[in-house]
Protein backbone atom coordinates (compact mmCIF):
# COMPACT_ATOMS: atom_id res chain seq x y z
CA UNK A 1 0.00 0.00 0.00
CA UNK A 2 1.40 3.42 -0.91
CA UNK A 3 1.80 6.02 1.77
CA UNK A 4 -0.95 8.62 1.83
CA UNK A 5 0.02 12.17 0.90
CA UNK A 6 -2.48 13.67 3.29
CA UNK A 7 -3.62 12.09 6.52
CA UNK A 8 -6.51 13.61 8.43
CA UNK A 9 -6.97 12.08 11.84
CA UNK A 10 -10.08 12.70 13.88
CA UNK A 11 -10.12 16.41 13.18
CA UNK A 12 -12.59 18.62 14.99
CA UNK A 13 -13.30 22.29 14.66
CA UNK A 14 -15.17 24.35 17.15
CA UNK A 15 -15.98 28.02 16.70
CA UNK A 16 -17.39 29.51 19.86
CA UNK A 17 -19.82 26.93 21.20
CA UNK A 18 -20.60 25.58 17.80
CA UNK A 19 -18.94 22.43 16.53
CA UNK A 20 -18.47 22.78 12.78
CA UNK A 21 -16.50 19.57 12.15
CA UNK A 22 -17.18 16.50 14.32
CA UNK A 23 -14.12 14.31 14.03
CA UNK A 24 -13.25 13.61 10.42
CA UNK A 25 -10.61 11.09 9.40
CA UNK A 26 -9.51 10.34 5.88
CA UNK A 27 -6.44 9.75 3.70
CA UNK A 28 -5.62 10.99 0.25
CA UNK A 29 -3.22 8.89 -1.84
CA UNK A 30 -0.89 9.85 -4.67
CA UNK A 31 -2.36 9.50 -8.13
CA UNK A 32 -5.97 9.73 -7.07
CA UNK A 33 -8.61 12.40 -7.33
CA UNK A 34 -10.46 12.45 -4.05
CA UNK A 35 -13.86 14.12 -4.08
CA UNK A 36 -15.14 15.86 -1.00
CA UNK A 37 -18.85 16.11 -1.57
CA UNK A 38 -21.50 17.78 0.49
CA UNK A 39 -24.22 20.40 0.43
CA UNK A 40 -23.30 24.03 1.04
CA UNK A 41 -22.61 24.66 4.68
CA UNK A 42 -21.62 21.05 5.40
CA UNK A 43 -18.11 22.08 6.44
CA UNK A 44 -16.12 21.43 3.25
CA UNK A 45 -14.44 24.80 3.12
CA UNK A 46 -13.71 24.77 6.86
CA UNK A 47 -12.03 21.38 6.44
CA UNK A 48 -9.94 22.65 3.54
CA UNK A 49 -8.95 25.77 5.46
CA UNK A 50 -7.71 23.56 8.27
CA UNK A 51 -5.69 21.39 5.89
CA UNK A 52 -3.87 24.43 4.49
CA UNK A 53 -3.50 26.08 7.90
CA UNK A 54 -5.74 29.09 7.31
CA UNK A 55 -7.81 27.89 10.26
CA UNK A 56 -6.55 26.26 13.40
CA UNK A 57 -7.52 22.68 14.18
CA UNK A 58 -9.41 22.47 17.48
CA UNK A 59 -8.63 18.79 17.97
CA UNK A 60 -6.97 16.04 15.94
CA UNK A 61 -4.04 16.00 13.54
CA UNK A 62 -3.38 16.67 9.91
CA UNK A 63 -0.21 15.43 8.20
CA UNK A 64 0.98 16.28 4.72
CA UNK A 65 3.82 14.06 3.50
CA UNK A 66 4.36 13.19 7.14
CA UNK A 67 4.62 16.81 8.30
CA UNK A 68 2.20 18.00 10.95
CA UNK A 69 0.28 21.01 9.65
CA UNK A 70 0.30 22.85 12.96
CA UNK A 71 3.73 21.94 14.23
CA UNK A 72 5.73 21.84 10.97
CA UNK A 73 3.64 24.23 8.94
CA UNK A 74 6.32 25.43 6.58
CA UNK A 75 7.43 21.93 5.60
CA UNK A 76 3.84 20.74 5.26
CA UNK A 77 2.57 23.66 3.19
CA UNK A 78 5.55 23.52 0.83
CA UNK A 79 4.00 20.26 -0.46
CA UNK A 80 0.61 21.85 -1.12
CA UNK A 81 -0.81 23.83 -4.00
CA UNK A 82 -4.31 25.13 -3.53
CA UNK A 83 -7.17 27.25 -4.70
CA UNK A 84 -9.58 28.13 -1.92
CA UNK A 85 -13.04 29.12 -3.10
CA UNK A 86 -12.64 31.76 -5.78
CA UNK A 87 -9.33 32.09 -7.60
CA UNK A 88 -8.59 35.59 -6.31
CA UNK A 89 -5.56 37.19 -7.89
CA UNK A 90 -4.05 40.67 -7.82
CA UNK A 91 -6.14 42.15 -10.59
CA UNK A 92 -3.91 45.20 -11.02
CA UNK A 93 -1.04 42.90 -12.00
CA UNK A 94 -0.78 40.82 -15.15
CA UNK A 95 -1.25 37.06 -15.05
CA UNK A 96 2.50 36.64 -15.45
CA UNK A 97 3.32 39.07 -12.64
CA UNK A 98 0.90 37.18 -10.40
CA UNK A 99 2.73 33.94 -11.11
CA UNK A 100 6.11 35.63 -10.52
CA UNK A 101 4.77 36.86 -7.20
CA UNK A 102 3.96 33.34 -6.05
CA UNK A 103 7.14 31.94 -7.60
CA UNK A 104 9.20 34.24 -5.35
CA UNK A 105 7.49 32.68 -2.34
CA UNK A 106 8.48 29.11 -3.22
CA UNK A 107 11.20 27.36 -1.24
CA UNK A 108 13.26 26.50 -4.29
CA UNK A 109 13.64 29.16 -6.97
CA UNK A 110 11.29 28.64 -9.87
CA UNK A 111 12.78 29.22 -13.31
CA UNK A 112 11.23 31.37 -16.01
CA UNK A 113 11.01 28.20 -18.10
CA UNK A 114 8.94 26.46 -15.46
CA UNK A 115 6.53 29.41 -15.33
CA UNK A 116 6.21 29.42 -19.11
CA UNK A 117 5.67 25.66 -19.12
CA UNK A 118 2.84 25.94 -16.59
CA UNK A 119 1.27 28.83 -18.48
CA UNK A 120 1.27 26.71 -21.61
CA UNK A 121 -0.15 23.78 -19.69
CA UNK A 122 -3.19 25.75 -18.53
CA UNK A 123 -3.57 27.36 -21.93
CA UNK A 124 -3.02 30.99 -21.01
CA UNK A 125 0.05 31.69 -23.16
CA UNK A 126 -1.75 34.17 -25.39
CA UNK A 127 -2.98 36.49 -22.66
CA UNK A 128 -0.58 35.99 -19.78
CA UNK A 129 0.80 39.53 -20.04
CA UNK A 130 -2.61 41.17 -19.75
CA UNK A 131 -3.88 42.52 -16.46
CA UNK A 132 -5.98 39.99 -14.54
CA UNK A 133 -8.71 42.68 -14.30
CA UNK A 134 -9.73 41.78 -17.85
CA UNK A 135 -9.75 38.00 -17.39
CA UNK A 136 -12.90 35.91 -17.53
CA UNK A 137 -13.71 33.69 -14.57
CA UNK A 138 -12.48 30.69 -16.51
CA UNK A 139 -9.14 32.33 -17.18
CA UNK A 140 -8.79 33.30 -13.53
CA UNK A 141 -9.57 29.72 -12.56
CA UNK A 142 -6.82 28.49 -14.89
CA UNK A 143 -4.40 31.07 -13.53
CA UNK A 144 -5.33 29.82 -10.07
CA UNK A 145 -4.43 26.28 -11.07
CA UNK A 146 -1.17 27.50 -12.59
CA UNK A 147 -0.33 29.23 -9.31
CA UNK A 148 -1.10 26.05 -7.38
CA UNK A 149 1.10 23.86 -9.61
CA UNK A 150 4.05 26.21 -9.96
CA UNK A 151 6.15 24.67 -7.19
CA UNK A 152 5.33 21.05 -8.17
CA UNK A 153 3.35 20.18 -5.01
CA UNK A 154 2.48 16.62 -4.07
CA UNK A 155 -1.02 17.58 -2.92
CA UNK A 156 -3.32 19.75 -4.99
CA UNK A 157 -6.36 21.12 -3.21
CA UNK A 158 -9.16 22.59 -5.25
CA UNK A 159 -12.17 24.08 -3.53
CA UNK A 160 -15.14 24.18 -5.91
CA UNK A 161 -12.87 24.34 -8.97
CA UNK A 162 -15.67 24.47 -11.51
CA UNK A 163 -17.67 27.20 -9.82
CA UNK A 164 -18.81 29.76 -12.34
CA UNK A 165 -17.31 28.01 -15.35
CA UNK A 166 -19.26 27.32 -18.54
CA UNK A 167 -19.75 23.68 -19.57
CA UNK A 168 -16.77 23.72 -21.91
CA UNK A 169 -14.59 25.19 -19.19
CA UNK A 170 -15.80 22.63 -16.66
CA UNK A 171 -14.96 19.82 -19.00
CA UNK A 172 -11.53 21.21 -19.74
CA UNK A 173 -10.67 21.62 -16.05
CA UNK A 174 -12.01 18.17 -15.22
CA UNK A 175 -9.95 16.46 -17.88
CA UNK A 176 -6.92 18.42 -16.92
CA UNK A 177 -7.25 17.50 -13.25
CA UNK A 178 -7.60 13.81 -14.07
CA UNK A 179 -4.63 13.99 -16.37
CA UNK A 180 -2.22 15.56 -13.89
CA UNK A 181 -3.35 13.29 -11.08
CA UNK A 182 -2.79 10.13 -13.05
CA UNK A 183 0.25 11.12 -15.10
CA UNK A 184 2.21 12.99 -12.45
CA UNK A 185 1.08 10.86 -9.53
CA UNK A 186 -0.31 13.89 -7.77
CA UNK A 187 -2.85 13.59 -4.98
CA UNK A 188 -5.81 15.82 -5.76
CA UNK A 189 -8.40 16.79 -3.19
CA UNK A 190 -11.46 18.39 -4.78
CA UNK A 191 -14.49 19.72 -2.99
CA UNK A 192 -17.81 20.34 -4.63
CA UNK A 193 -21.53 20.36 -4.10
CA UNK A 194 -22.07 19.45 -7.74
CA UNK A 195 -22.72 15.74 -7.75
CA UNK A 196 -22.68 15.10 -11.47
CA UNK A 197 -19.36 16.90 -11.64
CA UNK A 198 -17.79 14.74 -8.94
CA UNK A 199 -19.05 11.59 -10.58
CA UNK A 200 -17.02 12.38 -13.69
CA UNK A 201 -13.92 13.67 -11.97
CA UNK A 202 -13.16 11.57 -8.92
CA UNK A 203 -11.71 8.15 -8.22
CA UNK A 204 -12.87 8.12 -4.64
CA UNK A 205 -15.41 10.15 -2.84
CA UNK A 206 -16.20 11.19 0.72
CA UNK A 207 -19.63 12.50 1.55
CA UNK A 208 -19.82 15.10 4.27
CA UNK A 209 -22.90 16.47 5.96
CA UNK A 210 -23.31 18.64 9.05
CA UNK A 211 -19.59 18.31 9.71
CA UNK A 212 -19.58 14.50 9.68
CA UNK A 213 -18.08 12.21 7.07
CA UNK A 214 -20.93 9.86 6.15
CA UNK A 215 -19.14 7.57 3.76
CA UNK A 216 -15.89 7.15 1.88
CA UNK A 217 -16.12 4.92 -1.16
CA UNK A 218 -14.55 4.20 -4.51
CA UNK A 219 -16.65 5.85 -7.16
CA UNK A 220 -17.54 2.65 -9.07
CA UNK A 221 -18.46 0.86 -5.84
CA UNK A 222 -20.68 3.70 -4.79
CA UNK A 223 -22.52 3.62 -8.06
CA UNK A 224 -23.05 -0.16 -8.07
CA UNK A 225 -24.27 -0.32 -4.54
CA UNK A 226 -27.43 1.57 -5.16
CA UNK A 227 -28.21 -0.14 -8.37
CA UNK A 228 -31.79 0.57 -9.27
CA UNK A 229 -32.74 0.93 -12.91
CA UNK A 230 -35.30 3.53 -13.84
CA UNK A 231 -37.08 4.09 -17.14
CA UNK A 232 -38.60 7.44 -17.92
CA UNK A 233 -41.71 7.44 -20.05
CA UNK A 234 -43.89 10.07 -21.55
CA UNK A 235 -47.24 8.79 -22.82
CA UNK A 236 -50.72 10.17 -23.38
CA UNK A 237 -52.84 10.56 -21.28
CA UNK A 238 -50.23 10.27 -18.60
CA UNK A 239 -52.55 9.93 -15.56
CA UNK A 240 -54.42 7.07 -17.15
CA UNK A 241 -51.22 5.38 -18.25
CA UNK A 242 -49.86 5.45 -14.72
CA UNK A 243 -53.02 3.93 -13.25
CA UNK A 244 -52.98 1.28 -15.98
CA UNK A 245 -49.34 0.37 -15.36
CA UNK A 246 -49.81 0.24 -11.63
CA UNK A 247 -52.72 -2.13 -12.20
CA UNK A 248 -50.29 -4.32 -14.11
CA UNK A 249 -48.09 -4.23 -10.95
CA UNK A 250 -45.31 -2.01 -12.33
CA UNK A 251 -43.75 0.25 -9.76
CA UNK A 252 -44.51 3.72 -11.11
CA UNK A 253 -44.32 7.22 -9.78
CA UNK A 254 -44.81 10.54 -11.48
CA UNK A 255 -42.62 13.58 -11.42
CA UNK A 256 -43.49 16.61 -13.53
CA UNK A 257 -44.85 15.39 -16.85
CA UNK A 258 -42.83 12.18 -16.81
CA UNK A 259 -43.49 8.81 -15.25
CA UNK A 260 -40.63 6.86 -13.68
CA UNK A 261 -40.88 3.09 -13.84
CA UNK A 262 -38.56 0.80 -11.91
CA UNK A 263 -37.21 -2.15 -13.84
CA UNK A 264 -34.88 -4.99 -13.07
CA UNK A 265 -33.48 -6.16 -16.37
CA UNK A 266 -33.10 -5.20 -20.00
CA UNK A 267 -36.11 -7.24 -21.18
CA UNK A 268 -38.40 -5.25 -18.90
CA UNK A 269 -38.00 -2.25 -21.21
CA UNK A 270 -39.50 -4.11 -24.18
CA UNK A 271 -42.26 -5.50 -22.01
CA UNK A 272 -43.11 -2.09 -20.63
CA UNK A 273 -43.37 -0.59 -24.11
CA UNK A 274 -45.58 -3.34 -25.39
CA UNK A 275 -47.83 -3.06 -22.30
CA UNK A 276 -48.40 0.64 -22.98
CA UNK A 277 -49.12 0.13 -26.64
CA UNK A 278 -51.40 -2.84 -25.89
CA UNK A 279 -53.40 -0.66 -23.51
CA UNK A 280 -54.19 1.64 -26.43
CA UNK A 281 -52.13 4.59 -25.20
CA UNK A 282 -49.83 6.77 -27.21
CA UNK A 283 -46.18 6.33 -26.24
CA UNK A 284 -44.13 9.46 -27.02
CA UNK A 285 -40.89 8.76 -25.31
CA UNK A 286 -39.15 6.00 -23.41
CA UNK A 287 -35.57 6.00 -22.16
CA UNK A 288 -33.53 4.50 -19.42
CA UNK A 289 -32.28 6.93 -16.86
CA UNK A 290 -28.80 6.12 -15.65
CA UNK A 291 -28.63 6.16 -11.93
CA UNK A 292 -26.50 9.11 -10.93
CA UNK A 293 -24.61 9.83 -7.82
CA UNK A 294 -27.31 12.33 -7.03
CA UNK A 295 -29.79 9.69 -5.95
CA UNK A 296 -27.20 7.90 -3.93
CA UNK A 297 -26.21 11.15 -2.35
CA UNK A 298 -29.77 12.17 -1.57
CA UNK A 299 -30.51 8.73 -0.17
CA UNK A 300 -27.43 8.86 2.03
CA UNK A 301 -28.13 12.29 3.39
CA UNK A 302 -31.90 11.80 3.72
CA UNK A 303 -31.83 10.03 7.08
CA UNK A 304 -29.73 12.77 8.51
CA UNK A 305 -32.20 15.54 7.85
Amino acid sequence: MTEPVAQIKNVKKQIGNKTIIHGISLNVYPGEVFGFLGPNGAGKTTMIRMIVGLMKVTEGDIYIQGNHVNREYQKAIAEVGAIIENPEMYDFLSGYENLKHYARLAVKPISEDRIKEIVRLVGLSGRINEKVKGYSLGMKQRLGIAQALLHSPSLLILDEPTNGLDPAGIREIREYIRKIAHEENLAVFVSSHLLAEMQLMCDRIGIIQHGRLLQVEKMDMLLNKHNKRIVQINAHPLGKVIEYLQALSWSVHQSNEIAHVEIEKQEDIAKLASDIVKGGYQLYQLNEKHESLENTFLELTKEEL
Partner: protein
Amino acid sequence: MYFFRMLQNEHIKIYHKSGTWIMVGLMIFILLTFALVSKFILNEGETVAWERQAQAEITQIEERLNNGVALKVERDYLEQELAVLEYRLAENLPPLEPDSLWGFMADTTNLTGIASLFTIVIAASIVANEFSSGTIKLLLIRPVSRGKILLSKYLTIISFAFVMLALMFGLSLILGFLLFGVTEETYAFLTYSNGQVVEQSMISYILSLFGYKSIEIVMISTLAFMISTVFRSSALAIGFSLFLMFTGPQFVQLLSSYDWVKYILFANTNLMQYINGVPMVEGMTMSFSITVLVLYFLLFIVVSWSVFKWRDVAV
Protein backbone atom coordinates in the same frame (compact mmCIF):
# COMPACT_ATOMS: atom_id res chain seq x y z
CA MET B 1 17.23 35.88 0.28
CA TYR B 2 13.72 34.59 0.86
CA PHE B 3 12.80 37.59 2.96
CA PHE B 4 14.25 39.90 0.35
CA ARG B 5 11.94 38.32 -2.24
CA MET B 6 9.00 38.89 0.10
CA LEU B 7 9.92 42.56 0.38
CA GLN B 8 10.22 42.72 -3.37
CA ASN B 9 6.68 41.34 -3.72
CA GLU B 10 5.22 43.86 -1.30
CA HIS B 11 6.95 46.72 -3.06
CA ILE B 12 5.71 45.53 -6.44
CA LYS B 13 2.16 45.39 -5.11
CA ILE B 14 2.37 49.00 -3.90
CA TYR B 15 4.11 50.53 -6.88
CA HIS B 16 1.95 48.75 -9.45
CA LYS B 17 -1.13 50.50 -8.18
CA SER B 18 -2.07 53.69 -9.97
CA GLY B 19 -3.24 55.17 -6.65
CA THR B 20 0.34 55.23 -5.38
CA TRP B 21 1.54 57.22 -8.37
CA ILE B 22 -1.37 59.61 -8.08
CA MET B 23 -0.26 60.29 -4.51
CA VAL B 24 3.34 60.84 -5.60
CA GLY B 25 2.11 63.17 -8.35
CA LEU B 26 -0.05 65.09 -5.89
CA MET B 27 2.89 65.48 -3.56
CA ILE B 28 5.05 66.93 -6.34
CA PHE B 29 2.21 69.24 -7.39
CA ILE B 30 1.66 70.55 -3.87
CA LEU B 31 5.37 71.19 -3.30
CA LEU B 32 5.64 73.01 -6.60
CA THR B 33 2.61 75.17 -5.80
CA PHE B 34 4.00 75.90 -2.36
CA ALA B 35 7.37 76.90 -3.85
CA LEU B 36 5.80 79.22 -6.41
CA VAL B 37 3.54 80.80 -3.80
CA SER B 38 6.45 81.45 -1.43
CA LYS B 39 8.50 82.95 -4.25
CA PHE B 40 6.01 85.18 -5.98
CA ILE B 41 3.13 85.88 -3.61
CA LEU B 42 4.31 85.82 -0.01
CA ASN B 43 7.41 88.01 -0.49
CA GLU B 44 5.72 91.22 -1.52
CA GLY B 45 5.69 92.86 1.88
CA GLU B 46 8.25 95.51 2.80
CA THR B 47 11.26 94.25 4.63
CA VAL B 48 12.43 95.74 7.86
CA ALA B 49 16.07 95.38 8.78
CA TRP B 50 16.33 92.29 10.94
CA GLU B 51 18.44 94.04 13.57
CA ARG B 52 15.70 96.58 14.29
CA GLN B 53 13.06 93.86 14.44
CA ALA B 54 15.14 91.80 16.84
CA GLN B 55 15.73 94.83 19.04
CA ALA B 56 11.98 95.51 19.17
CA GLU B 57 11.27 91.92 20.13
CA ILE B 58 13.85 92.06 22.92
CA THR B 59 12.22 95.13 24.41
CA GLN B 60 8.84 93.44 24.24
CA ILE B 61 10.04 90.31 25.97
CA GLU B 62 11.86 92.23 28.69
CA GLU B 63 8.72 94.23 29.39
CA ARG B 64 6.68 91.09 29.81
CA LEU B 65 9.28 89.49 32.06
CA ASN B 66 9.39 92.59 34.25
CA ASN B 67 5.62 92.59 34.60
CA GLY B 68 5.84 89.10 35.98
CA VAL B 69 4.76 85.93 34.18
CA ALA B 70 2.58 83.47 36.04
CA LEU B 71 3.54 80.21 34.36
CA LYS B 72 7.03 78.83 34.69
CA VAL B 73 6.72 77.28 31.23
CA GLU B 74 6.02 80.66 29.70
CA ARG B 75 8.85 82.36 31.57
CA ASP B 76 11.28 79.65 30.42
CA TYR B 77 10.15 80.12 26.88
CA LEU B 78 10.55 83.90 26.99
CA GLU B 79 13.98 83.68 28.57
CA GLN B 80 15.03 81.24 25.89
CA GLU B 81 13.84 83.55 23.15
CA LEU B 82 15.60 86.47 24.76
CA ALA B 83 18.90 84.62 24.95
CA VAL B 84 18.70 83.58 21.30
CA LEU B 85 17.85 87.11 20.13
CA GLU B 86 20.70 88.66 22.10
CA TYR B 87 23.12 86.07 20.76
CA ARG B 88 21.90 86.78 17.24
CA LEU B 89 22.57 90.50 17.58
CA ALA B 90 25.91 90.03 19.29
CA GLU B 91 27.23 87.61 16.66
CA ASN B 92 25.52 89.41 13.77
CA LEU B 93 23.65 86.32 12.56
CA PRO B 94 20.57 87.15 10.49
CA PRO B 95 17.45 85.02 11.09
CA LEU B 96 16.18 82.58 8.52
CA GLU B 97 14.18 84.27 5.74
CA PRO B 98 11.44 82.27 4.03
CA ASP B 99 12.72 83.45 0.64
CA SER B 100 16.04 81.69 1.03
CA LEU B 101 16.98 78.13 0.22
CA TRP B 102 17.20 77.05 3.87
CA GLY B 103 14.17 79.04 4.93
CA PHE B 104 12.10 77.46 2.18
CA MET B 105 13.32 73.98 3.11
CA ALA B 106 12.54 74.54 6.77
CA ASP B 107 9.03 75.71 5.81
CA THR B 108 8.56 72.61 3.67
CA THR B 109 8.71 70.45 6.77
CA ASN B 110 5.30 71.92 7.68
CA LEU B 111 3.98 70.02 4.68
CA THR B 112 5.13 66.61 5.89
CA GLY B 113 1.52 66.05 6.93
CA ILE B 114 0.97 65.13 3.27
CA ALA B 115 3.60 62.41 3.53
CA SER B 116 1.87 61.21 6.72
CA LEU B 117 -1.49 61.20 4.97
CA PHE B 118 -0.25 59.15 2.01
CA THR B 119 1.68 56.75 4.20
CA ILE B 120 -1.43 56.23 6.32
CA VAL B 121 -3.38 55.37 3.17
CA ILE B 122 -0.81 52.72 2.23
CA ALA B 123 -0.43 51.43 5.81
CA ALA B 124 -4.19 51.17 6.20
CA SER B 125 -4.63 49.14 3.05
CA ILE B 126 -1.58 46.89 2.86
CA VAL B 127 -3.15 44.18 5.04
CA ALA B 128 -6.83 45.07 4.73
CA ASN B 129 -6.77 44.95 0.93
CA GLU B 130 -5.45 41.40 0.93
CA PHE B 131 -8.44 40.45 3.03
CA SER B 132 -11.03 42.38 1.03
CA SER B 133 -9.77 41.01 -2.28
CA GLY B 134 -9.42 37.47 -0.89
CA THR B 135 -5.78 37.24 -1.95
CA ILE B 136 -4.77 36.79 1.69
CA LYS B 137 -5.60 33.07 1.38
CA LEU B 138 -3.11 32.43 -1.39
CA LEU B 139 -0.54 34.66 0.30
CA LEU B 140 -0.69 32.81 3.62
CA ILE B 141 -0.40 29.29 2.24
CA ARG B 142 3.30 29.71 1.54
CA PRO B 143 6.23 28.11 3.33
CA VAL B 144 6.83 31.11 5.56
CA SER B 145 5.50 32.16 8.94
CA ARG B 146 2.70 34.67 9.23
CA GLY B 147 4.94 36.84 11.36
CA LYS B 148 7.38 37.26 8.47
CA ILE B 149 4.57 38.05 6.05
CA LEU B 150 3.39 40.79 8.39
CA LEU B 151 6.94 42.05 8.89
CA SER B 152 7.51 42.29 5.13
CA LYS B 153 4.38 44.40 4.87
CA TYR B 154 5.33 46.61 7.79
CA LEU B 155 8.84 47.26 6.50
CA THR B 156 7.37 48.13 3.12
CA ILE B 157 5.27 50.86 4.73
CA ILE B 158 8.25 52.24 6.58
CA SER B 159 10.25 52.27 3.39
CA PHE B 160 7.36 54.05 1.66
CA ALA B 161 7.29 56.69 4.41
CA PHE B 162 11.00 57.34 3.94
CA VAL B 163 10.65 57.43 0.17
CA MET B 164 7.98 60.10 0.57
CA LEU B 165 10.15 62.11 2.98
CA ALA B 166 13.23 61.74 0.79
CA LEU B 167 11.17 62.92 -2.14
CA MET B 168 10.04 65.98 -0.18
CA PHE B 169 13.58 66.70 0.94
CA GLY B 170 15.07 66.30 -2.52
CA LEU B 171 12.34 68.23 -4.23
CA SER B 172 12.45 71.13 -1.77
CA LEU B 173 16.22 71.26 -2.13
CA ILE B 174 15.97 71.44 -5.92
CA LEU B 175 13.06 73.89 -5.95
CA GLY B 176 14.64 76.04 -3.26
CA PHE B 177 17.90 76.12 -5.17
CA LEU B 178 16.22 76.98 -8.47
CA LEU B 179 13.89 79.63 -7.05
CA PHE B 180 15.94 81.25 -4.30
CA GLY B 181 19.50 80.28 -5.11
CA VAL B 182 22.26 80.00 -2.55
CA THR B 183 22.69 83.15 -0.52
CA GLU B 184 26.10 84.47 0.43
CA GLU B 185 25.03 85.21 3.98
CA THR B 186 25.86 82.46 6.38
CA TYR B 187 22.91 81.24 8.32
CA ALA B 188 23.07 79.28 11.47
CA PHE B 189 20.24 77.85 13.41
CA LEU B 190 20.32 78.80 17.07
CA THR B 191 19.11 76.44 19.73
CA TYR B 192 19.06 76.89 23.44
CA SER B 193 20.22 74.03 25.56
CA ASN B 194 21.48 73.80 29.14
CA GLY B 195 21.37 77.57 29.54
CA GLN B 196 23.49 78.22 26.48
CA VAL B 197 22.81 79.25 22.93
CA VAL B 198 24.26 76.75 20.47
CA GLU B 199 24.91 77.29 16.79
CA GLN B 200 23.88 74.51 14.43
CA SER B 201 24.58 74.36 10.72
CA MET B 202 21.50 74.82 8.57
CA ILE B 203 21.77 71.54 6.71
CA SER B 204 21.96 69.51 9.88
CA TYR B 205 19.06 71.53 11.33
CA ILE B 206 16.87 70.78 8.31
CA LEU B 207 17.87 67.13 8.31
CA SER B 208 16.93 66.92 11.97
CA LEU B 209 13.57 68.56 11.20
CA PHE B 210 12.88 65.81 8.65
CA GLY B 211 14.19 63.26 11.13
CA TYR B 212 11.76 64.33 13.86
CA LYS B 213 8.91 64.38 11.35
CA SER B 214 9.78 60.85 10.30
CA ILE B 215 9.24 59.68 13.89
CA GLU B 216 5.79 61.22 13.81
CA ILE B 217 5.01 59.52 10.49
CA VAL B 218 6.29 56.13 11.66
CA MET B 219 4.11 56.31 14.79
CA ILE B 220 0.91 57.29 13.03
CA SER B 221 1.46 54.75 10.22
CA THR B 222 2.11 52.00 12.74
CA LEU B 223 -1.19 52.91 14.37
CA ALA B 224 -2.97 52.78 10.99
CA PHE B 225 -1.26 49.46 10.26
CA MET B 226 -2.49 48.02 13.55
CA ILE B 227 -6.08 49.15 13.01
CA SER B 228 -6.03 47.77 9.49
CA THR B 229 -4.62 44.43 10.66
CA VAL B 230 -7.09 44.07 13.51
CA PHE B 231 -10.26 45.21 11.74
CA ARG B 232 -9.31 44.25 8.18
CA SER B 233 -10.94 47.41 6.91
CA SER B 234 -8.87 50.03 5.14
CA ALA B 235 -11.66 52.62 5.30
CA LEU B 236 -11.88 52.31 9.07
CA ALA B 237 -8.12 52.46 9.47
CA ILE B 238 -7.73 55.50 7.22
CA GLY B 239 -10.66 57.34 8.80
CA PHE B 240 -9.65 56.64 12.35
CA SER B 241 -5.96 57.42 11.90
CA LEU B 242 -6.63 60.67 10.08
CA PHE B 243 -9.17 61.70 12.67
CA LEU B 244 -6.61 61.09 15.41
CA MET B 245 -3.83 62.77 13.48
CA PHE B 246 -5.84 65.97 13.04
CA THR B 247 -7.68 66.12 16.35
CA GLY B 248 -5.08 64.44 18.58
CA PRO B 249 -2.76 67.43 19.05
CA GLN B 250 -5.70 69.83 19.56
CA PHE B 251 -7.18 67.49 22.09
CA VAL B 252 -3.89 67.34 23.97
CA GLN B 253 -3.56 71.13 23.90
CA LEU B 254 -7.08 71.52 25.24
CA LEU B 255 -6.44 69.21 28.15
CA SER B 256 -2.82 70.19 28.75
CA SER B 257 -3.60 71.36 32.28
CA TYR B 258 -4.19 67.75 33.30
CA ASP B 259 -1.10 65.78 34.12
CA TRP B 260 -2.24 62.46 32.62
CA VAL B 261 -2.37 64.04 29.18
CA LYS B 262 1.35 63.52 28.86
CA TYR B 263 0.76 59.79 28.44
CA ILE B 264 -1.33 60.33 25.31
CA LEU B 265 0.47 59.39 22.11
CA PHE B 266 -0.05 62.78 20.48
CA ALA B 267 1.47 64.70 23.35
CA ASN B 268 4.74 62.94 22.51
CA THR B 269 4.88 62.51 18.74
CA ASN B 270 6.27 65.97 18.11
CA LEU B 271 9.78 65.81 19.52
CA MET B 272 10.54 69.25 18.08
CA GLN B 273 8.77 70.64 21.11
CA TYR B 274 12.00 70.09 23.02
CA ILE B 275 14.20 71.74 20.37
CA ASN B 276 12.45 74.97 19.58
CA GLY B 277 9.45 75.38 21.76
CA VAL B 278 8.06 74.38 25.09
CA PRO B 279 6.74 70.93 26.05
CA MET B 280 3.01 70.33 25.75
CA VAL B 281 2.67 69.51 29.42
CA GLU B 282 4.95 70.95 32.06
CA GLY B 283 7.63 68.58 33.22
CA MET B 284 7.80 66.50 30.03
CA THR B 285 11.29 65.74 28.78
CA MET B 286 12.75 64.30 25.61
CA SER B 287 13.61 61.02 27.25
CA PHE B 288 10.11 60.76 28.76
CA SER B 289 8.58 61.22 25.30
CA ILE B 290 10.92 58.70 23.71
CA THR B 291 10.00 56.13 26.37
CA VAL B 292 6.28 56.74 25.80
CA LEU B 293 6.73 56.47 22.03
CA VAL B 294 8.66 53.21 22.32
CA LEU B 295 5.95 51.76 24.55
CA TYR B 296 3.17 52.75 22.15
CA PHE B 297 5.20 51.39 19.26
CA LEU B 298 5.65 48.03 20.99
CA LEU B 299 1.95 47.93 21.83
CA PHE B 300 0.93 48.55 18.20
CA ILE B 301 3.36 45.94 16.91
CA VAL B 302 2.45 43.26 19.44
CA VAL B 303 -1.30 43.75 18.88
CA SER B 304 -0.92 43.60 15.09
CA TRP B 305 1.32 40.59 15.23
CA SER B 306 -0.72 38.50 17.65
CA VAL B 307 -4.02 39.20 15.91
CA PHE B 308 -2.55 38.44 12.50
CA LYS B 309 -0.82 35.29 13.72
CA TRP B 310 -3.75 33.68 15.47
CA ARG B 311 -6.66 34.71 13.35
CA ASP B 312 -8.68 32.09 11.46
CA VAL B 313 -8.88 33.29 7.90
CA ALA B 314 -12.42 32.90 6.67
CA VAL B 315 -12.74 35.39 3.84
